[in-house]
């Protein structure tokens, strides 16, 4: 396995100029929320850092994350970053299969023990490990085994980071996140369904250049997950003015009004979708006319429905409301009966008073 820097060579091979490489480093720098003066250092680090060995584990997932990071219309710098690492195991991408593939993983682990990076996409079934296995090894065993010698783990996608779709109610496999299982290794969560490719590569770049980035309480790099989509959304002015689309094809929707009432989860979702955007900065879901699903947040499948406004109650309120009316009327009728009975008794107990019985006994005597 080569461990010398490959990037300059590869750039040449792909016809990427040094000028565009530096531009890329500058944008990565800003994306990572580093001061612009750091850009040359990023460039230097990327050019000179040794290629670390990376083992990519795919568990209960849809391959969407891999698709997102590898699918580009033209060779991109993100792709080059991929080339800046030594991807020693990825069962979707590698040519080898079965026992041969596993040997590659074992070999990489052995050679780079304590230094390799593990990237995980997909969640891990905990109820019954046999629900998902590769080459006869359960996901749980493979993760534990591989994680043991890792320098760090990057959980890519919401499934690996938080459990994601497999964990959605009723969670038939007892799916768990990487962080539910591995407690003794640094874990960087890069949630999203899928995560923005640029964010994935930026995180890798940060790891390569400066090590583990600053993480929030959910293990996400703060540089990409500090602000809500709502705060940076180009439709925010409509929210502020009180202009909201009521349907996906009404006047408001066509005029680009806020999608809050259609269930947009932008206000409670932290991600850079609205600024970095997707497909080389072309667009993002809200710009395409659909509300944010909140895919960078834990349990986003179960957070009250994609098309229900955030402010709407999320429980069983309709049945509860009906029950409340019945209970209220029933208890009210009970109370009414007691109150009326009390009053009737009081009237029945009325002692007729006259001018000579207006005083108490002791006053009389």
């Amino acid at each position, binding site marked *: 396995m080569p461990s010398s820097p490959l990037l300059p060579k590869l750039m040449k091979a792909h016809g990427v100029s040094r000028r565009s490489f530096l531009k890329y480093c500058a944008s990565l720098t800003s994306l990572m929320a580093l001061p612009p003066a750091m850009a040359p250092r990023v460039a230097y680090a990327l050019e000179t850092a040794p290629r670390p060995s990376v083992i990519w584990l795919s568990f209960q997932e849809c391959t969407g994350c891999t698709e997102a990071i590898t699918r580009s219309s033209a060779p991109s710098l993100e792709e080059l970053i991929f080339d800046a690492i030594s991807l020693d195991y990825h069962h979707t991408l590698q040519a080898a299969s079965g026992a041969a593939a596993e040997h590659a993983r074992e070999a990489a682990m052995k050679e780079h023990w304590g230094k390799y990076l593990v990237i995980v996409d997909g969640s891990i079934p905990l109820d019954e490990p046999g629900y998902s296995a590769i080459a006869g090894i359960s996901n749980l065993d493979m993760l534990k085994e591989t994680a043991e010698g890792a320098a760090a783990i990057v959980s890519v996608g919401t499934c690996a980071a938080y459990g994601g779709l497999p964990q959605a109610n009723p969670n038939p496999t007892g799916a768990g996140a990487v962080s539910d299982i591995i407690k003794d290794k640094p874990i960087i969560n890069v949630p999203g369904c899928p995560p923005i490719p640029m964010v994935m590569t930026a995180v890798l770049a940060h790891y390569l250049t400066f090590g583990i980035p600053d993480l929030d309480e959910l293990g996400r790099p703060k540089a990409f997950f500090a602000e809500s989509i709502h705060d940076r959304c180009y439709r925010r002015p409509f929210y502020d003015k009180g202009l909201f689309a009521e349907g996906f094809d009404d006047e408001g929707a066509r005029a680009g009004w806020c999608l809050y009432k259609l269930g947009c989860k932008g206000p409670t979702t932290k991600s850079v979708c609205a600024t970095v955007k997707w497909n080389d900065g072309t667009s993002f879901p809200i710009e395409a006319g659909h509300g944010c699903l909140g895919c960078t947040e834990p349990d986003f499948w179960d957070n009250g429905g994609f098309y229900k406004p955030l402010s709407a109650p999320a429980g069983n309120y309709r049945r509860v409301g009906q029950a409340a009316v019945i209970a209220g009327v029933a*208890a009210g009728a*009970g*109370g009414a009966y*007691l*109150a009326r009975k*009390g*009053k009737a008794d*009081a*009237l029945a*107990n*009325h*002692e*007729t*008073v*006259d*001018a*000579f*019985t*207006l*005083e*108490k*006994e002791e*006053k*009389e005597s």
Partner: protein
Amino acid sequence: MNATCERGVNALREQIDAPVASFFSSCVSCGLCADACIFFQETQDPQYTPIRKVELLRRVWENEYTLFGRLKSMAGLGNKITDEDFTDAERLVYDSCTMCGRCSMVCPVGNDITLMIRKMREGMSAAGHAPVELIGAAKRHTKGNSPMGDLSKAIQAQVKHASAETGIEIEFDKPGVDYLVILSAQEIAEYPEVIGAMAKIFKKAGVTWTISLEAFEATNVGIQIGNRDVAKYLVTRVVEAAERLGVKKVISPECGHAYQAMRWEGPNLIGREYDFEVVHIIELLDQLRAEGKLKTSGKDSDKITFHDPCQINRRGGINKEPRRLLNMVAENFVETDDAGTMNWCCSAGGGVGANERAADLKNAAFQLKKRQFEKVAPDKIVTMCAFCHHTLENALEDNDMDIEVAGLTEMMAEYLVDED
């Protein structure tokens, strides 16, 4: 059976109805009723905040007519009403409330606090906590025919005197007439001129009327004490006399609470509609004016102001009538501040005047009236309630204010056209 605490609590229980429940449910303790109260205004003592005066009624309501209150009582958190509670309420329910009704007008959620005071008094009186003076008046009225005792001789003498003075024959218990006149004891004893005044006006207007020796007393101390049994007993006398004589209408005299007793509470006390109608004397005079049957000539050149009796204007709805009449005979009629619906009480209505214990409070309350009168500086104050008349006269004298007080009926009679 003598008064007991339990009888009082039961009386409060009997009084609670949907309005009371909605009032207590709605009170947000904003305290705006305080400024409407003449006793709070003049003492600035927060205990006189009107809604506080009906706290016992609120407790009975909460403990016995709400599910949550009942649960609280079951949990041992409800506090039982004791005789001391009634004693503590005496000064609030009788001494510092004339049932003037101002608080009921300002409450932002619409609570009729005055109505609840009336209901509180049912409990207070049944529990034996009515002021002794009012109980005495009730005894005298029950045994005799007026709260001042037996006024049979007095009324006969006054009517005879009025007949002689006006030359108009006034017959007692004359069947077949249209109107039965009843009077307040205050008028019979202190302002008998009103009898002659009515005789003159009615003669001119062609109104047929009589006074019943069986029931000539209009006041009803049962209303002031706040006891429906006593009030019913007293009002029944008038109802029976009126129905026996077959009159079309009974004229409620210049007396505030008598108007409430006769016209608004009476039918409910006896539990049926009357066979006759009740009109207030000032309503009748205004009606005669409208029909052209009441004509006056000349005007009083004095500076005159008008005092609205609470029970007749604010709680009785007679507001424009006295002003229309007064404008016929007063050249220089000026209103005091707040005149009309929001007028301030004379300071002694609702039984406060008879209550010795309340004398200081009454004097304090009058200071508000005093300032209002001083601002207008009238030569004469006209009113349409004999008890307001009496209170103002005495209080003005006590305060060294030289202002004449007159009844409106009397005043109208004075300027009646002479020629036939």
